[in-house]
């Protein structure tokens, strides 16, 4: 009864509900963006910084995209190993996942870049020489003459990121595969499909749908973490900001713009992930 005799308060209530339901966080970020855009026009320092950082944006995007593609590939393979009944595959996958999840990404980047790469290149040289010996490739082939210095730090950093993130993606895939009921595998096998066919046509298509949102979130995370490769001197957004700030002493403006550029990219991506999540859940 009490709720029906005070219509005015109800109306106020719904008005406040509507107000509080609005995506204020988005408006506030938008406001910041507008303020920065405005500053662009009135303050030449910002446009100066932006022009300096532009090449870094391309590098950040390139490292993130290739690193992520590699990480998802590694993750899928390793995830399949984690659910495999084959003890070798299972243990290899599990060792990899547990080691990688326990090492900070920054440490892994340093390790891959300075410790793993030189002997790995040596190995590739040996392989190239061997292929030349059995006349599959010429004597001075690419593999044989590759030197450590030719392998750019951006490549080393990308591989390190992929190896670190591969472990996270592997656990996402594992969880996705395990979330598909046992009956699906049994039904597929009872129709005569092999384990691989059942995975390929029945289990994975369902599992991948379920893991798309967490995979998307990891893409966003990787975009941010790619800033770590600046320790290798790779000229990404972060590294260029460091250079600009150090030479101009414009710390506040440089790092504000840098932070905001990351923020714009991640907010746009997370809106993308949200809408994907919504679309997938209505399809279920």
């Amino acid at each position, binding site marked *: 009864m009490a709720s029906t005799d005070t219509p005015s308060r109800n109306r106020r209530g719904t008005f406040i509900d509507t107000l509080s339901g609005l995506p204020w966080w988005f408006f506030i970020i938008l406001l910041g963006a507008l303020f920065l855009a405005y500053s662009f026009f009135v303050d030449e320092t910002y446009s100066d910084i932006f022009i300096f950082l532009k090449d870094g944006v391309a590098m950040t995007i390139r490292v993130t995209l290739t690193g992520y593609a590699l990480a998802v590939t590694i993750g899928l393979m390793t995830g399949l190993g984690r659910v495999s009944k084959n003890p070798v595959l299972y243990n290899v996958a599990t060792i990899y996942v547990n080691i990688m999840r326990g090492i900070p990404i920054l440490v892994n980047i340093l390790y891959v870049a300075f410790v793993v790469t030189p002997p790995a290149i040596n190995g590739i040289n040996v392989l190239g020489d061997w292929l030349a010996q059995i006349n599959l490739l010429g004597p001075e082939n690419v593999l044989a003459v590759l030197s450590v210095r030719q392998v750019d730090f951006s490549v080393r950093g990308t591989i390190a990121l992929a190896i670190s993130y591969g472990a996270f993606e592997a656990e996402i895939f594992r969880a996705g595969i395990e979330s598909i*009921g046992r*009956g*699906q595998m*049994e*039904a*597929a*096998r*009872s*129709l*005569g*499909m*092999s384990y691989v*066919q059942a995975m390929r*046509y*029945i289990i994975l*298509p*369902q599992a991948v*749908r379920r893991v798309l949102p967490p995979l998307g979130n990891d893409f966003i995370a990787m975009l941010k973490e790619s800033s770590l490769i600046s320790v290798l001197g790779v000229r990404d957004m972060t590294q260029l900001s460091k250079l600009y700030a150090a030479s101009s002493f414009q710390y506040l403006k440089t790092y504000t713009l840098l932070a905001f550029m990351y923020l714009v990219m991640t907010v746009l991506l997370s809106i993308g992930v949200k809408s994907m999540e919504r679309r997938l859940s209505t399809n*279920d």
Partner: protein
Amino acid sequence: MTDKSQPIIILKNVDKHFGHVKAVNNISLEVMPSEVVVVIGPSGSGKSTMLRCINHLETPTAGQIVVDGKVLSHKGKDINAIRREVGMVFQQFNLFPHLTALENVVIAQTVVRGRSKQEADRVARQQLDRVGIPEKADVYPGQLSGGQQQRVAIARALAMNPKIMLFDEPTSALDPEMIKEVLDVMMQLAEEGMTMVVVTHEMGFARNAADRIIFMNEGGIVEEATPDVFFDNPKHERTKLFLSQILH
């Protein structure tokens, strides 16, 4: 070619243990081509486990299983070859939810049997027609009733042209008003001469469709008889007790 005078399924002293639990205990059974065998018994008596051993969804702990003249070994390709010839229908339907009804029936034909897309499509529509739901071809399992889902599952198994059909409590997960539509399809299959092993609690179906009824208890076969003898003159005390509890 299947020899009509030889049993198509032979179980010889089959055991299946889960740890200390003897789910199936020393079962021997032969099923002839075109025979309809109905397996009944209290829950936990090992009916489903025995059925799942026939197509190796459960690997027997001991004993020998011969299906269509081939001995089921424990590894690899032979089992896939056998499973192709043995259709299975599950209590929980287990349709593939990411595929339409038609695609559910098509997929194994193309992947396993190597049929062309058109050929598989044609067979699938034919089978959906046979189970009475041709109009649901393009619908996803989530939008079908339980009875319709189970009929798609039967069509999916039939599309592989199996020599044997195994039914694992096919109506137990259905609403009462949907049981008949599934049983009708099974009855029709039995009349067409399909070899069937059916685990069920549907006594009406057992009486009308079965050539032979097997009563299981605690992992073993207690009694084996034609429906008339089984329902009207059961020999064992355990069978009498079971029947008195379910036929009220």
